[in-house]
């Protein structure tokens, strides 16, 4: 395994206020290899990439290219040193021609010679087998071709290290294949490629080596062919398979209390989610699980009508209904606690009281305001029930801790007395005590007949609360686990897919 080392990152450390984002991480890229960088959310892979591309400065460690140590000051500097990045979102100008996009920002002098540039671009594109012409306006090319033009630019800049950050997430299968062909081609030419993706199958299709990060630490570097998929998942999530097997049947049955189906969807799809079937009984707690990007959030967002719903039949209590917008979902008794509470949840400048009554106010409509006295009573009640730690009900929510912010949003939905509550990562980034409180609350709600869909990255949490787990991979539902199957190793096997053993 003594291939030629291209890029060496040693002992990389990066600190953010209060967090050690990277703790002594090593990463090695060899000439002519495709190296997948894997890890769940918060594992530190994007931090590592950003250090490599000069967006962040590292707090400790060293980087060397072809044996000579380098310092990277800016994205521009990184490119000059042979490190190019192609991001998930196309970072080219759609209003310019393909050729201009390949050469702009790199030329010297006052004048631009479009004809010569277009000819040069055509040559490069032809050599790389990219189906585009230099004179064509970039915006008229497909996304895959645009991505390839970005790669062609990088290649022409004599990049040694090419970072592909989630390049395939907006491409269809055919386009992915085109991209992979190009990647293999570049690999043969000696370029080292760092491939960041959340599609496991793609990792196995194209990569030679895998480096796994978890919680800002290096888990290990493996040859792709020597690391079964289920092991990879275990390493990403942080449980060794042996340990998992001994855990045995942790999940207990009998959490279901009613046979009445509350919500049922057939072939529901949205702009973000592929068609899926789903149902939940009254008083049932179920969960969506899968790796980040597997489509679990997108699916529940479709249930709530948060994204543009494209199709599917939905029944609530047996009655066919149409839910295309959140307000319609709310009127049918569905509440949704969004994944990103900073963006989709709290309004930081408003007080605890105002945040709590928000959803109820929306449901009542603007012409039936909730009186001040009423809203104060509601706020006080839920501050007490949920044990929200706040100076007063008029304190701006933004000044509360993460856990208490989460409780405020929970209070908001509980106040609307939902029949069905969707909680997307309600426990992310909050302390363990509050986590347990929220889990208890979920179980209590279910006892009272509320259906709950619970999503969490922590599988133990899901096993503790859910009586049924829906497993997703690569935007498809790949399994449903109940009863005896509700245990860590079974969940991971299902996440990893059939070929694992």
């Amino acid at each position, binding site marked *: 395994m003594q291939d030629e080392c291209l890029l060496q990152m040693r002992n990389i450390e990066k600190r953010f206020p209060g967090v050690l984002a990277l703790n002594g991480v090593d990463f090695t890229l060899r000439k002519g290899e495709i190296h997948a960088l894997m890890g769940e959310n918060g594992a530190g892979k994007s931090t590592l990439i950003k250090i490599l591309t000069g967006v962040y400065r590292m707090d400790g460690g060293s980087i060397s290219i072809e044996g000579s140590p380098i310092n990277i000051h800016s*994205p*521009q500097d990184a*490119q000059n040193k042979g490190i190019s990045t192609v*991001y998930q979102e*196309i*970072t*080219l*100008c*759609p*209003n*310019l*021609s393909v050729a*201009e*996009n390949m050469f*702009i*920002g*790199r*030329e010297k*002098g*006052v*004048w*631009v010679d*479009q004809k010569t540039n277009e000819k040069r671009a055509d040559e490069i594109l032809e050599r790389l087998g990219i189906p585009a*012409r230099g*004179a*064509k*306006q970039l*915006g*008229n090319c*497909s996304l895959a071709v645009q991505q390839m033009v970005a790669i062609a630019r990088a290649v022409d800049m004599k990049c040694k290290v090419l970072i592909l950050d989630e390049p395939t997430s907006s491409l269809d299968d055919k386009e992915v294949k085109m991209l992979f062909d190009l990647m293999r081609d570049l690999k043969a030419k000696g370029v080292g490629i760092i491939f960041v993706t959340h599609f496991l199958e793609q990792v196995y299709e194209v990569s030679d080596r895998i480096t796994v990060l978890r919680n800002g630490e290096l888990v290990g570097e493996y040859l792709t062919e020597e690391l079964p998929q289920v092991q990879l998942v275990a390493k990403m999530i942080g449980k060794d398979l042996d340990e998992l097997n001994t855990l045995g049947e942790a999940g207990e049955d009998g959490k279901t209390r009613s046979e009445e189906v509350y919500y049922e969807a057939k072939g529901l799809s949205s702009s973000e989610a592929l068609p899926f079937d789903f149902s939940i009984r009254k008083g049932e707690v179920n969960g969506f699980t899968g790796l980040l990007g597997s489509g679990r959030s997108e699916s529940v967002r479709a249930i709530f009508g948060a994204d543009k719903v494209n199709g599917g039949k939905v029944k609530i209590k047996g009655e066919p209904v149409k839910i295309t917008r959140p307000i319609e979902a709310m009127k049918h008794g569905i509440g949704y606690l969004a994944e990103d509470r900073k963006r989709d949840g709290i309004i930081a400048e408003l007080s605890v009281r105002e945040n709590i009554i928000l959803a109820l106010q929306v449901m009542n409509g603007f012409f039936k305001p909730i009186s001040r006295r009423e809203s104060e009573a509601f706020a006080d009640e839920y501050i007490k029930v949920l044990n929200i730690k706040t100076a007063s009900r008029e304190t701006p929510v933004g000044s509360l801790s993460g856990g208490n912010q989460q409780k405020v949003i929970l209070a908001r939905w509980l106040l609307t007395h939902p029949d069905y509550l969707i909680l997307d990562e309600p426990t992310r980034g909050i302390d363990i005590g509050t986590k347990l409180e929220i889990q208890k609350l979920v179980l209590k709600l279910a006892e009272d007949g509320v259906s709950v869909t619970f999503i969490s990255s922590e599988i133990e949490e899901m096993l503790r609360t859910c009586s049924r787990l829906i497993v997703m991979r690569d935007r498809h539902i790949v399994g449903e686990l109940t009863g005896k199957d509700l245990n860590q190793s079974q969940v991971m096997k299902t996440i990893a897919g059939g070929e694992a053993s």
Partner: protein
Amino acid sequence: MKKNGNDKVIKAKVKREPLTETQLLMTITICIFVVMYVLAMIVFEGGFLHAQQIFDMLNDNASLIIVSCGLTIVMIGGGIDISVGAVTSLVVMSCVLYLNNGGNIFVAVLLALGIGLAFGLIQGALISYLEIQPFIVTLAGLFFARGFTTILSINPQKVAQPAFVKLLDFRFEIGWLGYTAKNGTKIPATMEIGVIVAFVCVAAIFVLLQFTRLGRNFYAIGGNQTSALMLGINVKMTRFLSYVISGLLSGISGFVLMLHTGAGNATNAAGMEMNAIASSIIGGTLLTGGVGNVIGTFFGGMTLNTIKKIVVASGLNDPWWQSITTGGMLCFFILLQSIVLGRRARKKQKN
């Protein structure tokens, strides 16, 4: 023979690329202008049949065309500059007063350029380097320039300097484009100096936008600012320069306007910024940036003026009819643009 064959092969291989948005919108504007003008010639005859009609439009609007060019650059870069009219007015007033106090014409030109440049530099710096909203900055510039014009003189001031008056009265006479009046005298078509300046500006900005690195960078920052940054373009500097050029053109526009009116007035060039924005938009510049061209802007301005002339020829002499038709025109073009671009986007999606 052999050579011929090769040519054919190449021709077959080089499939014509579809028009870019810029080209498409510009073509639409030019076509509409031509159609409108020909219709006016058929329906109204009279003045429209004489070349002088076109020269009148050019004479009256040379300064508008010049500021529109500057605005087009700013808008291509994704910004806006609403100070251009007020700066033009300030330049006129300053130069008139300077000339009347025994100033030299060449120094007056420098003064005009200097005032425009100063506004461009300051506004550009505030917008690019302090990252203040361009609308706010140039609105402040507008008030500032208007106020300063009034301070200089609240009363209209006529240029009395003999050398300048000579320049003012100077006309290029183009005999073969003239016409014969009823009494048999030949009346040549006349064109002011300002028109030549306007044409030079349009040509220069066209070359700048089309063939220079800086020009293409304007398109890049307007197309996608983050991308432009990642592509290694100095976004701040580029944006700064767009406002500097716009300011400079406002200065030139001021001098040209003075050559046209020969007088300074606090209400000079009132509403010119809005007409310039309208010209740019009709000419196919998108307010969202990244798309546009000065040739289009030139025809945009001409279209706007033709419609005004048509309104007058229809006997609707009250000034509000011109405003109403301008508004209608603008709506029509924006609708047309969004329909054309929307259809394009949908077609692309299908592919």
